[in-house]
């Protein structure tokens, strides 16, 4: 609610005119500021050893920064404040498991998608088998995510409880505050793999939507958008995209997930 109000104000103030051709500013400053999650493994999280933010999104951002020839600066973000960070000019890009939607496209531009997933649920074993059962359940979602919006729009009989991020929602599920939580299947798999009491829970065997994640850019930055797209396509071409994917979702990871989307695929 709060962030929506701010966004409306930001947009009303004509946020975009002040920062034309960001790519020159980035090169002049020698720093690319990227909004990345700090609490959502494996996309962006605080690495236990290095005490720096690391993850799949960060790997992608690193390649964009090195293509620009500048230093990468990560701005910790959460689902609710990533668009305000970009629109107010506090970050140059969003690389935070950012799903492409028509609504968001009114406020920001998107690169080509570099990841695909679908909306799924974690619930106690056997308690949630098909979408009809969502009616009447209390379901935890991350504030400001597409999953929260989909639930509220399409499943009015479901009681949606919003949390700051996924681990918090999962804690609520463990404590019995909600009956299920929802997020991208990929993120849920990683979350469940790390949980000590994972035997009690499972990922419900259905997927509500197909969603694509991309880099978020400020509106009207055509040169920056082209550069980001070129980097993404070249990552796929030289096999680096597969390497990044395998590092976080490959067979040797805690939550292996087959790769069913390549950068440049038709969406």
């Amino acid at each position: 609610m709060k962030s929506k109000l701010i966004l409306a104000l930001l947009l009303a103030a004509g946020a975009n005119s002040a920062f034309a051709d960001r790519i020159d500013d980035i090169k002049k400053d020698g720093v690319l500021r990227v909004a990345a999650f700090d609490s959502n493994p494996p996309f962006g999280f605080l690495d236990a050893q290095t005490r720096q933010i690391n993850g799949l999104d960060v790997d992608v951002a690193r390649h964009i920064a090195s293509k620009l020839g500048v230093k990468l600066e990560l701005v910790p973000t959460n689902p609710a404040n990533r668009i305000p960070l970009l629109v107010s000019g506090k970050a140059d890009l969003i690389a935070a498991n950012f799903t492409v939607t028509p609504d968001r496209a009114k406020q920001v531009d998107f690169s080509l998608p570099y990841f695909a997933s679908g909306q799924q649920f974690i619930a106690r074993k056997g308690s949630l088998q098909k979408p009809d059962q969502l009616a009447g359940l209390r379901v935890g979602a991350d504030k400001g995510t597409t999953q929260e919006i989909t639930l509220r729009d399409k499943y009015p009989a479901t009681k949606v409880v919003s949390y700051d991020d996924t681990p918090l929602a999962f804690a609520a599920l463990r404590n019995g505050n909600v009956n299920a939580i929802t997020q991208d299947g990929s993120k849920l798999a990683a979350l469940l793999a790390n949980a000590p009491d994972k035997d009690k829970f499972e990922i419900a065997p259905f997927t509500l939507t197909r969603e694509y994640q991309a880099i978020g850019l400020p509106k009207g930055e055509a040169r920056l958008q082209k550069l980001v797209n070129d980097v993404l396509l070249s990552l796929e071409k030289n096999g680096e995209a597969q390497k990044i994917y395998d590092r976080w979702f490959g067979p040797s990871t805690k939550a292996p997930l087959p790769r069913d989307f390549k950068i440049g695929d038709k969406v």
Partner: protein
Amino acid sequence: MHSEVITANLDYLLLGSWPQGQLGGMALTLLMGLAAAALASVLGIAAGVGLVMGRPAWRRLLGVACGTLRAIPVVMLIFWCYFLLPVLFGVDVPGTLTVIAALALIGGAFLAQTVQAGIDAAPAGQWQAGLALGFTRWQVLRWLILPPALRMMLPSFVNQWVSLLKDTSLAYVVGVAELTFVAAQVNNREQVYPLEVFAFIALCYLLLCSLLAWAGRRLGRSPQQA
């Protein structure tokens, strides 16, 4: 209890990613709290004196400004300054400074009322005595009224300082890596030790606030007692 989660992350919780990266954690909380408390005290004394000594028009203006600031939730003021100022005026204020400024403004608005009430509480006879001795109004305020009044106000000041120190945890909305924020990061990675992590954080705040209250009490001792 699993204390390993605390010991393994102790340096991060206390100092953030410093010295490789920016200072954070408990150290940043303390610095932000002290800076906000100092600024709020200066603002509060200035505004409180203004509310007593200023011309009627100024007093009304100050009253409205303080009333407005007191009515805005701190978290909203931080959010607005951080995300709106760059767009409206093209000024890019770093998160840490935004938080300090927002806390100082609101803390100052609260303290202004304390200061005004403290000065008003001085008996009229003191003013008359001072004026009769040939002091100006400002001299009476500076030499006769304020020294004992400020000492009387000190407990209210300490209250406000402690409250400001705890309010630094609201910096999480703009991604400033203070104590609560880094604790949430650690907690979200480890996932299974919320009790340990947040109990430790509570202890840290207790320690910081107790230190501040102790320092405040020492400040209030009269020279003979010290």
